[in-house]
């Protein structure tokens, strides 16, 4: 039971950290960089840049 709670707690903490990171990233404007990269054809991806 103790182990079960411990691993659930770890999952919860990790998830929380994940969401925190995500929000910090959005706040810092990282999603804009992703967007700008993704809406223009990436020459590196297709092998000509």
């Amino acid at each position: 039971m103790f182990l079960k709670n411990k691993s659930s707690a770890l999952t919860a903490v990790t998830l929380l950290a994940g969401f925190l990171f995500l929000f910090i990233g959005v706040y810092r404007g990282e999603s804009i960089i992703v967007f700008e990269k993704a809406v223009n054809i990436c020459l590196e991806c297709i092998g000509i840049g």
Partner: protein
Amino acid sequence: MVNNKKSNDNFRHIIQVLWTLVTNAYIIGFIRGKIYQGKIKNVCVPGLNCYSCPGAVASCPIGALQAVIGSYEYKFSFYIAGFFIIIGTFMGRFVCGYLCPFGLFQDLLNKIPLRFKVSTFKFDKILRYFKYLVLIVFVVLMPIFITDIIGQGFPWFCKLICPAGTLEGGVPLVLLNDAMRSTVGLLFGWKFFILIAVIILSVIIYRPFCKYVCPLGAIYSLFNPISAFKYSINTDKCINCKMCAQVCKMGCNPVENPNSLECIRCGKCRSICPEEAIEYTFFNERKKI
């Protein structure tokens, strides 16, 4: 039991195909040789799905990671790290089994009948670590440190290796877009060669790219032991017949380690088990088979 295994595989393939269609639903892109430029591209899909694919409606997380840490403003990406932590914590490499178009592509190639299929070979185990090296060197270190004069790095994994980019973005765009076609050179030849090698190897070996090269699989693998979705062995039921280990195409032995870093949660072992001893839990809640 064989039927059970088949129906599980068919169900999985249906999910894989549906997911691939939904996340690449920009049909106009394929007709016009252009890519989608709408708002959804702010977010990533969990699998390796190139954002330069004409149909892609969202972003590739490995491409996105390189874009952020290669930019002159940031050398760490909270946004993508957070995304990996959330997806990884929920499901680990379940993404590989169900939600990655490039995984589906290799699955289908491996169905091509061939007299000699290779399940394992001498350096199989050690080569599995190569994907972590690819992640560290090509996805993280090179984009951060090899930059131009303004500090802008390049997505080296996309540029030099990624066969998913060549397949999903390169081939359709070069075929459909005259301007792209005229700029094809040595680099495209190199990436095309890698894609052909992956295709040939995928017929012989099950998912060679996932096993040895994919940096995204490498990231999710680290979450397998701690993710909310997990496998466990009911030792009261298991008769140690080893059928699960024999059927696993990723080379895992679920009895020894039900949450191996290599397990893509395809479920083959669960459906072949005569005692239904492999169970899965979600947030530690045991699910009935």
